[in-house]
Structure formats: C-alpha cells, structure tokens
C-alpha cells in the first residue's frame, strides 16, 4: 500500500534506516531510555501522594484544561502542517508526479503522528500516575477522555487554520533585521554571544507567535480583568516566551557554533563565555522585569523572588550542560533529565534547596567541560 504513495514510502524508508542506524548505538540508546525510565520512576515515587489532588484539580478546572490542551494541539498541528507543506515543496521528490491525494495523505500522517505519539505518552503517564497515586480509575479515565477530546478538537482546528504552501515560512533571518554596515573587521566573539538572541528573534516571527499570544488574551478576558492587568499578564507571557526561547536557543546555536568552529583551537572557557554571555544578561534582566511586573500585580514578594531565583538556577544549570555538551558534540538529554530529576526530588523534600544545588551542578558540569 505504501508503495502507491511515494512521499510516505520515502518517509517510511528513512524512519526504518534511522532505526537501523540506532542499532549501532545500542548502549547509548539503552542508557538514554533507562535514564528516562529512572527519572519517571523517581518522579512517580516522589510525588505519588500528590497525584490525587492533581487529578481533582484537572477535573475541577476542566474548561481550563480542555482549552489549554486544545490550544496546544491547534498550535502544534498548525506548525507541523506548515512545516510539512514547506518540506514537500522542497523535497527531493518534489518534481516527481505525485498525486495531490497522495501528497495530502503524506502531510496528514506527518502532521498528526507526533501529536498522536504525544497523546499516547500523556495517557500512559496519566495512567501510571493514577496507579501510583491509587486514584479512582473512573477519575483517571475521565481526565484522559477530556485530554483526548481536547486534542482532537484542537488538532482539527489547527489543521484547517494552517496556511498552506508558504515556501518562505521557515526562512531564518527575515525578522532578525539588517546588520549595520561597518568598515572595521576585528577579531571578536561578540557575534557568537549575539547568536542565541538572533536565533530567538528568527523564531519569534509574528506568524509563529500569533496563537501563543491568544492564550493569555483568552484567559484575561475570561477572568474579567482590567486592561492594565491584561497587558501585564500579556507582557509576562511574551517575556516568558522570550526567556524560554532563549533557553533553547543557546543549545541550538551552541551546537551549530561548535560544529563550525571544531577545526579551530578555541578553548572551552572562551567558547562557553561567548555563547552564554549575552543570553545570561538577557535572562537576568528579563527575570528582574518579570518579577517587578508580578509584584506590581500583587504577587507576594517572597514567592516572586523564589520563583525568579528558581528560574535563574534552571537557566544556569541548563546553559552549563548545553555549552559543555555542544563543545563535546554530545546530546544533553540524559544529563538534563538526571540533573532536573535530582533537583525535583530535593525541592520536594527541602523547599528552596534546589537553587544552590543547581548552581553546584552547573559548576560541576563546567569543571568537567574545562577538562576537555
């Protein structure tokens, strides 16, 4: 059947080859899978007593749960469909006589497969949480049903709302802005430190952000808040999006920079400082601004300070893992999972202790990187 659909057949072969390739790295894959399972087991054992309250909360605020899941599904499917459309207009089989029906089918499968996998994973997680927390099966089933229904609703909306065949949709630097012409060229790592910022700006194009902005707007209207409150929430949301994007951008830019600069004798300390300098400064200033806005909205300042410090600790730890692994051409997933699982356990037992521990972990990772 697949052979009648060349695009799907090509994708299927690529996936099979990827799996075959992974067989050559069985120990690494096994370690990663075991790491994920270990982190999951620790999470379930540590937080089991709280799961009943989580399910009750999800049911109590079911409209909010459904809206969040549906919006996420709509956003994910919309983005994935746009990517698939662009991908197939530039695909190596683009000039082959593939029927429109076959092309649409391929786009549908490629678009919905990741979300289906995510839905399955969430359902499995909810089920294990239900078992670990001895939650009533009917309650768990109800939550799973709501999540599934919301996903289907959101995915349908996302599929129809996605714009089609935008060949320039993934263009990298359209919103980065032109660089100022200069006459001098002097050795400097300044551009390296600006790279993650440029990456976030390239990601943060209006067409990428439109749904994300809708979420707080929707909730602000539901809550019946004032214009100032609405704008403040929106500002925190946008700032949060920027800071989260910046977190991911350091890995993205760091691994690309390391690959590009591999044949140069750049020392680790110089690489790490250049990659994170500006991003850290932006995180610091952004967090301070967000904290100020939150306090102005009436949030208690001890909790605000705690959340801000926790976020900065997460940033510091993530960046240290990212730069070390980018410099060493390694994947950071297992280290991230293990580090954050440890922090979660410590935080669950001793409130606030995860912050100094994260700084300690960051120093430990950087020390290991410096030995490279």
């Amino acid at each position, binding site marked *: 059947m697949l052979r009648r659909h060349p695009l799907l057949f090509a994708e299927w072969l690529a996936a099979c080859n990827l799996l075959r390739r992974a067989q050559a790295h069985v120990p690494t894959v096994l370690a990663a899978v075991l790491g994920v399972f270990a982190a999951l087991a620790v999470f379930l054992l540590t937080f089991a007593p709280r799961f009943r309250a989580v399910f009750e909360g999800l049911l109590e605020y079911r409209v909010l749960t459904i809206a969040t899941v549906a919006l996420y599904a709509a956003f994910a499917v919309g983005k994935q469909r746009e990517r698939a459309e662009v991908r197939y207009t530039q695909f190596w089989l683009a000039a082959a006589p593939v029927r429109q029906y076959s092309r649409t089918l391929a786009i549908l499968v490629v678009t919905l497969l990741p979300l289906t996998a995510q839905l399955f994973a969430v359902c499995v997680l909810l089920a294990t949480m239900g078992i670990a927390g001895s939650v009533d099966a009917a309650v768990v089933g109800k939550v799973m049903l709501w999540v599934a229904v919301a996903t289907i609703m959101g995915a349908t909306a996302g599929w129809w709302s996605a714009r089609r065949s935008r060949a320039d949709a993934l263009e990298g630097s359209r919103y980065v802005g032109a660089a100022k012409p200069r006459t001098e060229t002097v050795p*400097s790592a300044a551009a390296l430190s600006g790279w993650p910022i440029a990456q976030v700006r390239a990601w943060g194009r209006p067409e990428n952000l439109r749904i994300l902005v809708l979420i707080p707007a929707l909730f602000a209207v539901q809550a019946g808040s004032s214009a100032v409150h609405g704008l403040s929430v929106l500002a925190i949301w946008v700032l949060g999006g920027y800071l989260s994007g910046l977190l991911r951008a350091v890995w993205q830019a760091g691994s690309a920079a390391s690959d590009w600069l591999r044949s140069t*004798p750049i020392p680790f300390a110089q690489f790490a400082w250049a990659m994170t300098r500006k991003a850290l400064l932006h995180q610091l200033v952004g967090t301070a601004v967000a904290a100020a806005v939150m306090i102005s909205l009436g949030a208690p300042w001890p909790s605000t300070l705690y959340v801000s410090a926790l976020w900065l600790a997460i940033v510091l730890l993530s960046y240290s893992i990212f730069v070390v692994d980018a410099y060493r051409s390694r994947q950071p997933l297992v280290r991230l999972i293990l580090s954050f699982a440890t922090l979660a356990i410590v935080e669950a037992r001793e409130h606030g202790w995860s912050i100094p521990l994260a700084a300690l972990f960051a120093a430990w990772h950087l020390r290991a990187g410096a030995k490279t």
Partner: protein
Amino acid sequence: MTSIVLDVRDVHARYGKHEVLRGVTLQVRTGQWFCLLGPNGVGKSTLLHCVAARLVPSAGDILVCGHSVRTHTVDAKRKLGFGCAPEQLPGLLTGRQCLEVYANAKGLERIDPEVLELAEALKFSSYLDRFVDTYSLGTRQKLCVLLALLGEPALVVLDEAFNGLDPASALVVKRHLQERLAANRCAVMLATHSLDIVEHYADKAALLLDGRVVREWSDSEIAAMRQQGAARFEEALAQSG
C-alpha cells in the same frame, strides 16, 4: 630542504562499523599543492576531517607541523586553516561576524589585511554585512576560503573549494594560493574531482580508493603529463582506478 607540514601515518577511520580509511599514509611539505583524488565515497572528506581534527582516527596518527592531532590537538589546530563545507556556515551571522568570530577562535590579534584584500579581489566586500543565509553557494564558498586563510596557517585544507565559484573568482583564489606556496608560507591540501587543477597547479597528487592511497604522482610526473596534453592525466587516473 622544505619541512614536512603534514604527516599522515597509517590512519584508519570509521563511522560506526563501517571502516572508511584503511591505513592511509602520506606526507605534504611546505610550498606543496597537494591534490587528493578519488571517486565519490572513498574517504577523501573523511581524511580531510581527520586532518582538521574534526574526526578522531580509530588508529594511526596525523602530525600537523610536528603536532599530533590526537595528543596535541590545540597546537595542531593553530597551524591549520580548514575550509568548512558551505552549509556549515552559520546562517544567522554576517560574513564580517564570521570572520571576526573565526579570528577570535584562532586567537588572532587582528584580521590579516591580506585576507581582506582577497575578499575585495573576490568582490566579497559588499556581502560582508549581509547574513550568510542570504548568500549563494559561490558566495558561501568564498567565505569558507577566506576563513581557511585566516591567521597565516601552515596547512590549508580545502574540500572541493572551487565548487560553485565563478571562473574569475576561482582564478583569484588559485593565484593567491600559488603566491603563498611560492613564498613557502604554507602547504595546500585540496580534495577535488577537477583534473585541470591537478594538471595546472598541483605539485603532488594521490589517488584514494577504498580507503587506501593506491597511487601517488610526484611533481615531475605531473609536469610530464602536463606536457603530454590535457587528457593524459585522465587516462592515468582511469588506469589506476
């Protein structure tokens, strides 16, 4: 007597279980233009990546100016100018920023004026403040060559560096490399399929087949073939293959 800039000693390299290089041994001296030939997929780029310390050989060693790329990687890299693949250039940086970052990574105090003059000669100056992702293949290739020449490298390693370059720009690059070689400032290692470069510019060439060097041509052999006509090298290559 010129010194040995590159000494490749019985190098083996593999990707997973697939062994790509199976005992490559060769030497390149200062002032030599060395061309690495061979069909697609025989390990030319892999060998260049090993020389540039981007890939660790599974056995054997590579010395750049006497520094092992395995044990004294940083010292070896200081002597090296590697022209990366055009698609590896960072799209979100401008050409000028690429030069600045690369020079900084190499620990240079300033950008060599000679490289900036070459940029001018290649008509690249007007692209300096544009983002790399807006460059054509040829323009990216020019930037790769400029980066490889930063910091007076003793060994310039180029992988198909003339692909996509217009004939005028290719000639400018070839002449520039020849000037550096004539002054014994460096050696050039070029992986290429272009036999006219071998015939007109190379001082030494080697044919790589199935991960091994199966044939080497010295300066005098290449000069003899040059006199016998353009097709002579092609024939010799076909016989060796």
